[in-house]
């Protein structure tokens, strides 16, 4: 892959003429422009469901929040279109199947003033590896070395084609390791030394973070001078914060509140293109789910459009296949369970021996009814009840149980005491890492103990693929195999809704909530 460099193009003659002409016209309006300039607010207020527990990136509950408000940065980042791009790195290049080199920008400094050299980057990443479980797993088997002042080399004993995606992860923010120290140091504002456009000024764990403009920022100086991130855990209170105009950006608006925001004159509703996939996980170790025909029948008999309309007010996307909600895989929307097909579902169940007696409502096989439980957690009750009604139409008797508390599901699952449960996970990132968690025989999210020889071979195929496009195509093959064997039934994305004040300009929604909502071009009119 050729090096990627982010740079500004030089001005040509046409650009110059345009600039002069604009300036001439603008001079007529200088007084009003001055007024407009003074009407820019220097504070951006954000309300979120949670705020960080700590300021140290190795703390479990800090990383993403700090990145989302422009305090922290990584070597690389993901664009809203899902492409890997540079961040504090200037370029990155493949140095063979087992190695990558990343070049740093020469002008990047930590907020305290210290230059960010290759040695500092190595120290930062090694500290994360040592102190963070996620960091350790992301960097497992990867050696990190400084080559001079501005180049970092990543190498391993195996191919690491997904390293660029790994380096975009929220856990691998570049921080001043010396400032933070050898242990988790989450509550010392003075130690929180990052590279971002904003520096933490005050911090109240799980209440508020205030960040102020970093005068030593290497990039374009942001127009906003101050960011206030407040925790508002109640979803109704969050929507009121948006409607009152008190918060300029409010994250995690519920589908129930979305209509009020849409009618508001002070806020706009953004439907963030989520790459999550909520799915119904099936216990394939036991009847009736051990039969693939039953699994396929259940998948064909779900009306995903109805689920999206009822549960998410139409603000989510259906998932005909596992990767069908991920913008990086547009082909995946044409694969799998693209429509409701009760006729096919009925045929499959008949073939599997689950038949309806004359006048009966529940299918049975050898006298045993088609009956199972469906567990929900969090806010999944409406979806579960809808699925119960839809599956009842094709002769399944479903008992819905659950709790907003995650612990109940986890406990039942650990004991093997479950039939179906609904859960959602992201699908963005390196496809090998993400997909194998669910469908590799030893995947940590393979609750179903799914073990398919064809799938295993497909996952092994990643080992020899170094090109990003080849890996994407391999992921699509896995997606197809998943649709054929359906160990879990994809349903939809989850609605991610943000309310943004009409006073905010330059807002760009991103499918990863912790990627830069705040950037240099964002500003707020007062």
């Amino acid at each position, binding site marked *: 892959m050729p090096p990627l460099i982010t740079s500004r193009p030089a001005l040509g003659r046409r650009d110059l003429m345009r600039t002069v002409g604009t300036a001439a016209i603008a001079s007529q309006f200088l007084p009003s422009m001055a007024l407009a300039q003074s009407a820019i607010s220097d504070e951006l207020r954000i309300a979120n469901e949670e705020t960080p527990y700590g300021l140290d990136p190795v703390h479990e509950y800090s990383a993403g929040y700090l990145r989302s408000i422009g305090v922290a940065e990584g070597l690389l980042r993901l664009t809203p279109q899902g492409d890997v791009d540079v961040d504090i790195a200037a370029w990155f290049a493949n140095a063979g199947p087992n190695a990558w080199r990343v070049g740093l920008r020469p002008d990047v400094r930590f907020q305290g003033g210290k230059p960010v050299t290759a040695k500092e980057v190595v120290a930062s990443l090694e500290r994360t590896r040592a102190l963070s*479980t996620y960091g350790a797993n992301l960097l497992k088997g990867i050696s990190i070395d400084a080559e001079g002042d501005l180049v970092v080399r990543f190498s391993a004993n195996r191919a690491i084609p997904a390293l660029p995606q790994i380096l975009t992860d929220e856990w691998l923010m570049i921080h001043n390791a010396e400032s933070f120290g050898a242990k988790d140091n989450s509550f010392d504002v003075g130690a929180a030394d990052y590279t971002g456009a904003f520096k933490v000024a005050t911090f109240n764990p799980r*209440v*508020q973070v205030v960040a102020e403009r970093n005068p030593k920022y290497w990039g374009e100086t942001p127009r906003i001078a101050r960011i206030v991130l*407040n925790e508002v855990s*109640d979803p109704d209170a969050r929507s009121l914060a948006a409607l*009152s105009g008190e918060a300029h950006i409010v994250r995690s608006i519920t589908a129930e509140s979305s209509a009020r925001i849409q009618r508001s004159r002070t806020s706009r509703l953004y439907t963030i293109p989520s790459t999550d996939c909520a799915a119904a996980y099936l216990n394939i170790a036991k009847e009736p789910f051990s039969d693939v025909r039953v699994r396929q029948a259940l998948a064909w008999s779900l009306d995903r459009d109805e689920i999206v309309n009822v549960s998410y007010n139409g603000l989510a996307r259906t998932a005909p296949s596992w990767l069908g909600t991920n913008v990086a895989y547009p082909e995946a929307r044409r694969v799998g369970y693209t429509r409701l097909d009760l006729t096919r579902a009925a045929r499959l169940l008949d073939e599997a021996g689950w038949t309806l007696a004359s006048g009966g409502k529940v299918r049975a096989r050898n006298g045993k009814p088609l009956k199972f439980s469906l567990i929900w957690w969090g806010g999944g009750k409406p979806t579960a009840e809808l699925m119960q009604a839809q599956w009842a139409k094709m002769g399944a008797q479903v008992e819905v149980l659950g709790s907003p508390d995650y612990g*109940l599901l*986890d406990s039942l699952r650990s004991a093997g005491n479950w039939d179906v449960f609904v859960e959602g996970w992201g699908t963005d*990132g390196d496809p090998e890492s993400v997909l194998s968690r669910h469908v590799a025989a030893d995947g940590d999210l393979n609750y179903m103990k799914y073990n398919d020889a064809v799938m295993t071979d497909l996952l092994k195929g990643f080992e020899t693929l170094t090109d990003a496009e080849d890996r994407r195509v391999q992921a699509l093959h896995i997606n197809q195999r998943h649709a054929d064997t359906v160990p879990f039934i994809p349903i939809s994305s989850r609605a991610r809704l943000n309310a943004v004040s009409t006073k905010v300009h330059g807002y760009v929604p991103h499918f990863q909530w912790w990627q830069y909502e705040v950037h240099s071009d964002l500003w707020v009119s007062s």
Partner: protein
Amino acid sequence: MLRYTITRLAIALPVLLAAVTASFILIHAAPSDPVAIMFGAVRGGSQVGATGTQRDALRHELGLDRSWPEQYFSWVARTAQGDLGTSFRSRRPVATEMGNRMPATLSLGLTALVVQAILGLGLGALASRHPGGFVDHVTNAIAMILVSVPAYWLGLIFLWTFAVGLNWVDVTGPPDPSRIVLPALTLGLVMTPPVMRVFRTSLIEQQSRAHVTVARSKGLAEGVILFRHVARPAILPAITLLGISMGEMLGGAVIVESIFSWPGLGKYLLDSILARDYPVVQGYMLLTTFTVVIGTLVVDLLHGFLDPRLRTP
């Protein structure tokens, strides 16, 4: 009185122990564990998870691989020395975490208590003036409405009206005096009816007592009769209720604190229960029980002060 106080304090110790033992058993009996929740779908990233070995290592670090009795006695021994342990989530001492949030809860609780006392006693006195009359019916209706209205709903209505409609208050922000009015009003209002009804009934009952008739026949001023001979004994049951409210304010403020983003102990407790942050939940139960025990003792001592009959052995 001193012997009485010492006796009450001595009884408080086994009560405290029983309460914290019960809370230990209940929180540990809840399904799942903190490590599973930490790495589960609630928070887990999509590219990597935690291996079984890593989860077990964390369980060992947090002491969760020990038996219940071992964990319990270890916690009791540490607590007796003033160490409430370390929060699993924040990795900070529980005492520090609770100490940081205590001022917000105390300020909210005490303000709500004042609201409850003023409204409860005031409306109760008003209603007792003419039992069965128009004012009595109106105050009764107010009590019915307040006891039926959930705090959650009332709080949102207040926010909608005063934050969104009138823009007089903020929905979020630090726990400063400008933001305490609505949450205190919400909490105080929903807890007013019992005080109001008890005080009203008690006042009416006292008015028909013989000593009041004697005082009237002696020609004492009505104000003196009402204050010294009626209100003073009538207020005792209401004070008992207010004392119990002190303990309830700590627990009942969970919902109000969540709606108003008030960074107090209630919201912290809710988050900790969902995360199975055992040291925090146990520490909170200890604190709440202690508050109720001390609150009840204070009320009893006040009773003794207000009613001389209770002082004689």
